[in-house]
């Protein structure tokens, strides 16, 4: 059994990323689940990619980089995939597939279509509610996710009740990226978006489900931005700036 | 063994409010029901864990075929008929005949099968039998040659399941081997590009020949039940549907292995496989005795 080397430093920033494969166990000495552990923590929080196994060990179920936050003794695996699995609280972009009396059915890339209540919009009442048609693009928040049920969506911020940017995305263009790339784009320091922003003004909405919406002044620019984002996934910083520069120069 | 004696799904003293009969329990929790038996070392049909079902073999059951056999393995019944036909050989093997096994699992034998083209299981069993016959060189295909490059025998080995109650591979392979040993083909004569196979008079040793079988591989299958990988010899249909995997050991009379397959379930230790090989050795001896008693 190849287990994760326990001698490594805890601080993720300063060390090499720790790569785990499905079946690799999380050693109990590190998680603090045993008596004589260095960090005595009574509880452990498991994020994506880690599962308790039948034999009371905790093992990785996905290939990726093992991450740890000492606050709350949280452990998770950062991995990349294309298929979205809904998680409550995440922002996603969905396409309206159909409408019933109570719900809109939205394609958010999961196995089953997600449900968006017709009244789940800011200030919507039975009399006064927005109307959306098949094919419309909506930026929503997942309010309820359960592996046995369709995900439920809402188009308002539950703490304020305000729209806060949720709702229909008009005009523009949507591309599908991997979930890992979408997560990176959401980083305020995102390299590719910063590089593009230097040359072209545009607006974007990024769903955790890998759908990225782009809108700019002209179609030409929108296509350029979409291509640049897609190309950037496996490039390093220098390659990225060369790529963006060559695309912009061709305009 | 009477199944109603194993009534209690829970401890009666602790929870008298909720009890059901054994048959209800079996329907609601088939796996838990089975576990109760396995923990006592028996199975619901009264067999021990390594016990095979009563087996009978009849040969020559189809008079119009060149060779035939019927094998019953508990509730599983298969009939194998072998028909010899003259065919042209392939260019790259001008002196070799053909041996074509085909397993048919029709809706007649179990409601688990749908009508139409052969399902996955039928195809997989056909492939497994085909591989054992070819790779273990049961029959020299050159024996099926009539005239090199011109005519050879094709043996159509049709295996029809009449009643399905699990472990089709063991039953099918036994029926094929019994039927092959039963085959008689009339001596052909080749003259001027025409094959003549005499008919009419009763078949006898003078006007016909038998197949020379190099070995008789027989298989023994075991279902792997639960995460503990408990071995269940000769699983029936109910046991097959609740088990996670299967081990099949095919062995010939010279104690040589002809095929080993372990599929499904988690990783199993080599000791478990050795256990299967040992049990398969005993079982194939018993089965061989049954077959030769015919």
């Amino acid at each position: 059994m190849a287990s994760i080397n326990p001698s490594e430093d805890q601080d993720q920033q300063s060390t090499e990323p720790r790569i785990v494969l499905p079946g690799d166990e999380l050693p109990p000495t590190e998680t603090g689940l045993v008596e004589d552990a260095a960090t005595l923590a009574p509880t452990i929080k498991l994020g994506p990619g880690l599962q308790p196994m039948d034999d009371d060990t905790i093992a990785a179920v996905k290939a990726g980089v093992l991450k740890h936050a000492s606050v709350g003794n949280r452990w998770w695996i950062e991995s990349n995939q294309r298929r979205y699995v809904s998680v409550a609280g995440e922002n996603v972009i969905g396409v309206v597939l159909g409408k019933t009396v109570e719900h809109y059915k939205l394609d958010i890339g999961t196995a089953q279509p997600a449900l968006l209540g017709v009244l789940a919009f800011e200030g919507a009442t039975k009399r006064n509610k927005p109307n959306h048609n098949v094919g419309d693009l909506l930026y929503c928040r997942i309010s309820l996710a359960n592996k046995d049920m369709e995900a439920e969506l809402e188009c308002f911020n539950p703490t304020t009740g305000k729209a806060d940017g949720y709702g229909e995305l008009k005009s523009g263009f949507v591309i599908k990226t991997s979930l890992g790339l979408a997560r990176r784009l959401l980083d305020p320091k995102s390299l590719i978006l910063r590089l593009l922003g230097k040359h072209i003004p545009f607006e974007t909405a990024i769903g955790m489900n890998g759908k990225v919406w782009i809108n700019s002044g002209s179609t030409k620019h929108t296509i350029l931005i979409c291509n640049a984002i897609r190309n950037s996934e496996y490039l390093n910083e220098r390659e990225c700036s060369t790529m963006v520069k060559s695309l912009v120069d061709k305009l | 063994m009477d199944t109603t004696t194993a009534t209690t799904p829970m401890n009666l003293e602790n929870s008298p409010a909720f009890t059901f009969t054994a048959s209800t329990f079996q329907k609601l929790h088939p796996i838990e029901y089975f576990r109760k038996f396995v923990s006592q070392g028996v199975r619901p049909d009264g067999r021990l864990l390594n016990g095979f079902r009563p087996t009978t073999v009849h040969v020559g059951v189809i008079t119009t075929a060149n060779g035939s056999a019927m094998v019953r393995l508990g509730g599983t019944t298969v009939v194998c008929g072998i028909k010899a036909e003259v065919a042209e050989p392939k260019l790259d093997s001008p002196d070799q005949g053909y041996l074509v096994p085909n397993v048919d699992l029709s809706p007649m034998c179990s409601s688990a099968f749908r009508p139409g083209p052969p399902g996955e299981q039928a195809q997989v069993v056909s492939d497994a039998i085909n591989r054992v016959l070819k790779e273990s060189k049961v029959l020299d295909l050159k024996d099926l040659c009539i005239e090199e490059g011109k005519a050879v025998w094709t043996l159509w080995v049709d295996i029809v399941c009449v009643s399905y109650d699990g472990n089709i591979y063991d039953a099918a392979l036994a029926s094929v081997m019994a039927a092959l040993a039963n085959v008689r083909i009339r001596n052909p004569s080749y003259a001027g590009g025409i094959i003549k196979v005499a008919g009419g008079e009763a078949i006898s040793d003078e006007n016909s020949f038998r197949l020379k079988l190099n070995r008789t591989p027989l298989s023994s299958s075991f279902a792997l039940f639960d995460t503990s990988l408990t071995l269940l010899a000769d699983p029936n249909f109910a046991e097959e549907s609740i088990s996670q995997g299967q081990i099949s050991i095919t062995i010939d009379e010279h104690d040589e292995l002809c095929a080993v397959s372990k599929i499904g379930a988690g990783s199993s230790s080599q000791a478990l496989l050795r256990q299967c090989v040992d049990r398969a050795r005993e079982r194939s001896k018993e089965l061989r005795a049954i077959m030769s008693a015919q």
Partner: protein
Amino acid sequence: MSRPDRSRTSAHQLRPFFSSQNLLNRADGSAQFDFGGSSVMCSVVGPAEVRIRDEKLDRATIEVVARPLVGIPSIKEKAREQNIRETLEPLILSGLHPRTGIQIVVQTMKDDGCILSTAFNATIMALMDAGIPLKSILGSVTCMVDEKTNQIWLDPTTEELAQAKSAHVFVFDNKSSITSASAGAQGKDADVDMDQDTVGAAILFSDSTGLFTEEQYFECAQICFKAAQAIHGFIRTAIAKKLEKEYQQTHA
């Protein structure tokens, strides 16, 4: 001593193996795995919608489709489908995605023997690429016993298989491997070290045909287990390489 495949000097030597992930644009995960002149491409779609008829209430339905090099699928492919599906079913944590379907397509690209083993390795790489939750990974290796010399040859070519007395396919998971022998990223000539003796590695899948003795069978299992460890190590290196590329921006 020498074997028909002139590129290899030892009987217990694998052909150079190679893999790449994330090749197909439309699939959720894909991978290609090569063993010398044999190559298999695998694509994974899922967890996705599934036909109502195949839907399972408590877990995902796993469907495997095997495609031959040329022509239409025969019973050989059906058997391969069953082998792969039933081996992966206990490995995939299908309970995490109930009422969905996971479709795995296995396409032979080049055939020079050991297609089943190549397919197994390609499938596990594709499943990891798709992010399907797995209990462990696996590694598969084929070996054969030569008819004339009774020698055990690892990872035989089609030419070598033609003179096999018996052929054996084995699959091992990484739960039973204690050391992950690291073979270079290209898996160049991963000669398997035969000195150390490992006690009875647990077997995940085994398929043997031909004529062989019990001793030969377990000897083959042992040799294949050692080789499978090299495959495990290789998979780890391959994944690390891929992740490195993905994370170079965040760590820059």
